């Protein structure tokens, strides 16, 4: 099986992201710190990880968000995101 078939997207990370953020952020618009392209967190590419998730930019493949669960800790590395715009109302997403 090709790795492309295995990948999911940011929708699937919604539950884990809700452990970190108060609101749903799958509809939030993230700007890639590496290439500047922007799009919803739901549109980022997720590659399966046993201990967490890595979400990559669909344009340049940079890691934008990493969440790793280790005993006693949830570790978030968002250094691949320069700006995260979170809609205040659920229907705002586009």
């Amino acid at each position, binding site marked *: 099986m090709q790795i492309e*078939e*295995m990948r999911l997207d940011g929708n699937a990370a919604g539950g884990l992201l809700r452990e970190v953020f108060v*609101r749903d952020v799958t509809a939030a618009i993230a700007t890639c710190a590496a290439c500047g392209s922007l799009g919803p967190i739901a549109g980022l590419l997720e590659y399966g990880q046993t201990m967490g998730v890595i979400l990559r930019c669909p344009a340049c493949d940079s890691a934008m968000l990493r969440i790793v669960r280790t005993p006693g800790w949830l570790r978030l590395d968002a250094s691949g995101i320069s700006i995260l715009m979170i*809609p205040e*109302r659920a229907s705002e997403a586009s």
Partner: protein
Amino acid sequence: MPNEPVAAVPPRLDWRVATVSDIRDESRSARTLVLDVPQWAGHRAGQHVDVRLVAEDGYQAQRSYSIASPPEQRSIELTVERINNAEVSPYLCDTLAAGDGLEVRGPIGGYFVWDFSLGGPLLLVAGGSGIVPLMSMLRHHALADAPTRARIPVKLLYSARTWNDIIYRQELQALDERPELDVRFTLTRDVPPGWTGYSRRIDRALLEAVSWPASEKPLAFVCGPTPLVESVSAMLVDLGHDPARVRTERFGPTGS
């Protein structure tokens, strides 16, 4: 606008033990679990839940499953496609029985969701079990009064392997009778005798033939196996659709 209503901060996403109240077979490889979830606060069409299985030795496996039932319904329904040799779906499809408990958390997601406030027309494209979150949208749409439904016409293009792999087939055929709804199937592996519908993978010509033209500015939802989602969304953008109005959800590899 200080008085503008802002969505209340949602409650914490806690694991809860749901009770399986009913199980229905939907196709030869998919079945629906009807769940009563304690303190369920409702969901939006298109959202999913996380399901967690814990073995006796403490080993955990977790997967996401889309909700098929409409927001109007109190119990939630998950339709699960059996993927052989997988960790979770064989348990859900073969072992779990009515009366059993199942750990879930949700509802999850704010992107791949639709309600009437988002407008239309709607273009829904599904591959395999990717029909599940779209079914919640279709059922939500179907429960509205006739004038409301007429304002937002819907076209569904559903790609399945064979006639018997089509999930919710009878319900979809019944919905197709409605004037505001157009349901088209394409069968990619085998067709029944006398089949006059489409019998190929979704390509540009098929999309062009059955979907709204870009000038109608439809809101598109595409869900299914990752290769299908990525090719269909790219073709829609190529056909002139606004990328911001093409929402996608990748389900990963296909079953069986």
